[in-house]
């Protein structure tokens, strides 16, 4: 029979049918009878005492039904909520606000417009308090204390690795490079903002929560735990995650707005919709990065010896990173990267400041981008300090293919890799040696071009229960497959696509395993009443976990199908062979039964002693993380008159193991690359000393358009994961993780001969021009 289009086929996406017709159903498309609208009044101050909230000014606005304040929530013991990092954050303040744009009160009204009028009319009296925005200043003695319930602004100290051995190894190195770097705050800025519709049914004591969430089940459990004292139990909470207009980690956290809308639904007895504006989204939702890193890297005889990272982590006013790992800095200790080195030590100090909470949401597996940025910058510096080309230096220091599985000095067991092959391929594709020659010629003419490399190792697929949990829940994910009598199927998952194409790729995995064409398989996610429990989609975990579960559940079905086939063929199970979509009797290929025939028999003619039906469920707890990798090479030109960096070419060779749908994999890489160059060149959220934000709307938060984004050139190598059922590793974030360092390395490369050793990101024209000007290389034409 014809092969059905399983693994390795660029099957067109099933979900597109509705999206291209405008029939997607996103959160703001949900309208329930009697629904009210919620809008939020936010703080203009970064730190202030609230002396009075004048409810009456909002209640006087026509259409306003209620004003919800911290005091309203306090009555339900909901004014605070716990974070995943054993901290807490305000839902609505009782008496003080801790960052600009913090929620102060909410207005519920009969229309979106009336709610906005109410929120604008709501008068609040504030007494401004001193503000601390710089995390270094926050650690100084006598610094303004951000949290009234804590003794200091120091949240945690965490370290990993052997400090003494690392210091000794650095001391014994012949070359040591040292560099401070800051990865500033950035924001995922998915084009759809966050929102919810909370619908409380007082008669049945049932809550339906439509929510822009990447992790509906985890949210349901959190809501159940947070509201248990109100008598709301998990079986009476239904979380529905509709189509999501981009997530990238920004739709993992529980935001105060969700809780306020839920409380508002309880208070008013009506469904309540809250959709945040772009400004609210950028100003108050979870940020990413904000790591201040001091890095040292040593080598001896051209071989990397030891790495040391000391880090100040600015968490804002609460440690509310959606980080399910057992480490306060996530997976940051993947920082030894793609290199074989024997000593490393990493430390992180978390700090409170008067900024919004968050920390990890930007298409990244829990701080791996910070880790990759640090090591890839340092390796470049060290190569040059050794007088060597950064490519050659990397090739000599990579973990060799024969070293896998490789246990890093900081304790990660890398599953598989061939780093040299990926870098060599990328160098071939871009014509590395020719570009170097061109660079030499251009320098002689006074023109600035640079070539940058980043050879990253990712760490995804959260995660094995030894390193991850959410409130104690292990980080498996799930697949439940049911084959209908006519041989069609429905498959449900604990994950939630935000554009990754799960409806297609999961169907392809099942197709590969069972021989049922992908178009005959309906994939569903996002409704906690119907989908099996899972931890959701982020950190490139869907393929490593739920994808694996799909394969395992399919194999369970195949095992049962074999028994039915043996019954139908009157043969011994041991005499049956499988080819995609069909069992047949060994030696008699004509005597066989298709999966569709077997499915029909499962409901009409199943053997004695075997239950009817053909379905299976798998909860897959991965034995290890997966370690996708790749090498990116980027060529930039720099305008000496304006400081503008233009990416001329960008070659990305990715190895994510087995590719399920190459078209979708490439799409993921394209998007990841765009979100990789964005923080390198454009995006930043910053604060002035008073805590006023810059970058709080799309005029100032510079999401690249098609004009700023280069034409990506992709290549691939395939090194399957040995522990994943289909050898896949996950790919959603690799490019975002790997790309920024390549761009920085390229810009520094362009300026190296001038004496420039480092560039902070984003490398704005102003910043690049300053470097040029400082080194006498700015042009006036």
């Amino acid at each position: 029979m014809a092969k059905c289009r399983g693994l390795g086929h660029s099957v067109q996406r099933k979900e597109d049918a509705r999206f291209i017709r405008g029939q997607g159903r996103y959160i703001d498309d949900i309208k329930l009878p009697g629904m009210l609208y919620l809008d939020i009044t936010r703080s203009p101050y970064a730190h202030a005492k609230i002396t009075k909230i004048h409810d009456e000014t909002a209640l006087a606005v026509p259409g306003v039904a209620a004003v919800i304040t911290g005091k309203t929530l306090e009555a339900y013991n909901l004014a605070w909520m716990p974070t995943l990092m054993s901290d807490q954050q305000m839902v609505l303040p009782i008496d003080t606000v801790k960052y600009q744009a913090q929620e102060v009160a909410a207005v519920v009204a009969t229309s979106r417009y009336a709610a906005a009028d109410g929120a604008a009319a709501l008068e609040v009296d504030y007494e401004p308090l001193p503000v601390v925005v710089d995390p270094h200043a926050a650690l100084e003695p006598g610094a303004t204390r951000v949290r009234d319930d804590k003794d200091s602004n120091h949240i945690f100290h965490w370290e990993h690795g052997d400090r003494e051995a690392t210091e000794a190894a650095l001391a014994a190195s012949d070359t040591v490079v040292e560099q401070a770097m800051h990865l500033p705050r950035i924001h995922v800025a998915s084009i759809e903002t966050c929102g919810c519709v909370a619908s409380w049914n007082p008669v049945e004591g049932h809550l339906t929560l439509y929510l822009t969430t990447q992790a509906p089940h985890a949210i349901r459990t959190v809501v159940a735990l947070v509201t248990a004292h109100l008598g709301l139990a998990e079986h009476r909470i239904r979380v529905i995650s509709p189509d999501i207009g981009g997530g990238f980690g920004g739709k993992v956290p529980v935001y105060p707005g969700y809780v306020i809308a839920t409380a508002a639904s309880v208070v008013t007895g009506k469904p309540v919709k809250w959709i945040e504006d772009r400004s609210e989204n950028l100003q108050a939702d979870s940020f990413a990065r904000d790591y201040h890193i001091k890095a040292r890297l040593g080598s001896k005889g051209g071989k990397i010896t030891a790495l040391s990272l000391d880090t100040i982590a600015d968490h804002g006013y609460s440690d509310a990173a959606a980080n399910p790992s057992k480490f306060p800095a996530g997976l940051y200790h993947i920082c030894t990267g793609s290199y074989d080195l024997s000593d490393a030590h990493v430390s992180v100090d978390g700090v409170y400041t008067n900024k919004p909470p968050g920390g990890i949401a930007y298409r990244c597996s829990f701080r791996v981008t910070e880790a990759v940025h640090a090591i890839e910058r340092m390796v470049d510096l060290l190569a040059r300090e050794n007088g060597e080309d950064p490519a050659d230096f990397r090739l000599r220091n990579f973990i060799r293919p024969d070293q896998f599985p490789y246990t890093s000095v900081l304790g990660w067991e890398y599953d598989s890799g061939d780093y040299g092959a990926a870098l060599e391929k990328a160098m071939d594709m871009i014509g590395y040696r020719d570009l170097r020659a061109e660079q030499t010629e251009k320098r002689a003419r006074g023109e600035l071009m640079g070539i940058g490399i980043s050879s990253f190792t990712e760490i995804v697929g959260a995660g094995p229960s030894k390193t991850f949990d959410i409130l104690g829940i292990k980080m498996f994910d799930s697949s439940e497959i049911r084959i209908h009598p006519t041989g069609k199927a429905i498959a449900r998952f604990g994950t939630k696509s935000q554009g990754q194409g799960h409806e297609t790729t999961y169907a392809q995995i099942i197709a590969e395993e069972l021989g049922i064409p992908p178009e005959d398989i309906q994939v569903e996610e996002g409704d906690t009443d119907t989908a099996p429990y899972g931890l959701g989609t982020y950190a490139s975990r869907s393929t490593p976990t739920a994808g694996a579960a799909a394969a395992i559940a399919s194999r369970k079905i195949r095992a049962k199908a074999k028994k039915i086939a043996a019954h139908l063929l009157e043969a011994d199970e041991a005499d049956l062979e499988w080819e995609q979509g069909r069992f047949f009797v060994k030696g008699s290929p004509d005597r066989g039964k298709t999966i569709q025939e077997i499915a029909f028999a499962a409901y009409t003619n199943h053997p004695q002693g075997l239950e009817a039906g053909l379905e299976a469920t798998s909860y897959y707890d991965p034995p290890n993380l997966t370690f996708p990798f790749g090498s990116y090479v980027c060529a930039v030109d720099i305008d000496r008159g304006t400081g503008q960096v233009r990416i001329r070419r960008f070659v990305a060779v990715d190895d994510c193991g087995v590719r399920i749908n190459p078209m979708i994999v490439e799409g993921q890489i394209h998007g990841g690359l765009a979100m990789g160059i964005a923080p390198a060149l454009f995006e930043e959220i910053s604060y002035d000393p008073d805590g006023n934000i810059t970058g709080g709307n799309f005029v100032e938060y510079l999401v690249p358009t098609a004009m700023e984004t280069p034409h990506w050139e992709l290549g691939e190598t395939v090194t399957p994961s040995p522990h994943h059922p289909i050898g896949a590793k996950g790919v959603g974030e690799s490019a975002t993780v790997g790309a920024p360092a390549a761009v920085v390395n390229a810009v520094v490369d362009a300026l190296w001969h001038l004496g420039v050793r480092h560039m902070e990101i984003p490398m704005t024209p102003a910043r690049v021009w300053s470097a040029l000007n400082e080194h006498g290389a700015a042009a006036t034409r």
Partner: protein
Amino acid sequence: MSSHHVTIQVNGEEHAREVEARLLLVHFIREELGLTGTHIGCDTTSCGACTVLLDGTPVKSCTVLAVAAGGSRVTTVEGMGNGELHPVQQGFTEKHGLQCGFCTPGMMLTSKALLEANPDPQEDEIRWGISGNLCRCTGYVNIVKAVRRAAEIMKESKENGDG
């Protein structure tokens, strides 16, 4: 505070409503008419998720008052293909020009207008033409390919005797 009677032709159908002066066209389309394929992604006229065709021209409907669109023809994604898939919709599917789908209606409507003005656009012209629409998922390369593919489909259908 004024309220106004407005009639707008949307996807070929006349819709008359009594609206507040401040009602934005995007809310007229989404809330009054229930056509939710037109999305909202920002408040600064930056992202283009709300793009519709106003008398055939792509505009950001979050920055148009419904009253000021009175008497105009509006085309939304729901009206793109007249029941069939428009070549642009085909191109976007074939070339994987969308992921989450949120920017897609606006991106496709801009592309449709672009192709009507320039049936054979090159990559730089496409990038220029869609630079008022932000996409966070695709990195734009496949959108460019999708628009090129749509141009091919339109050319093929013209050659195949539609003319």
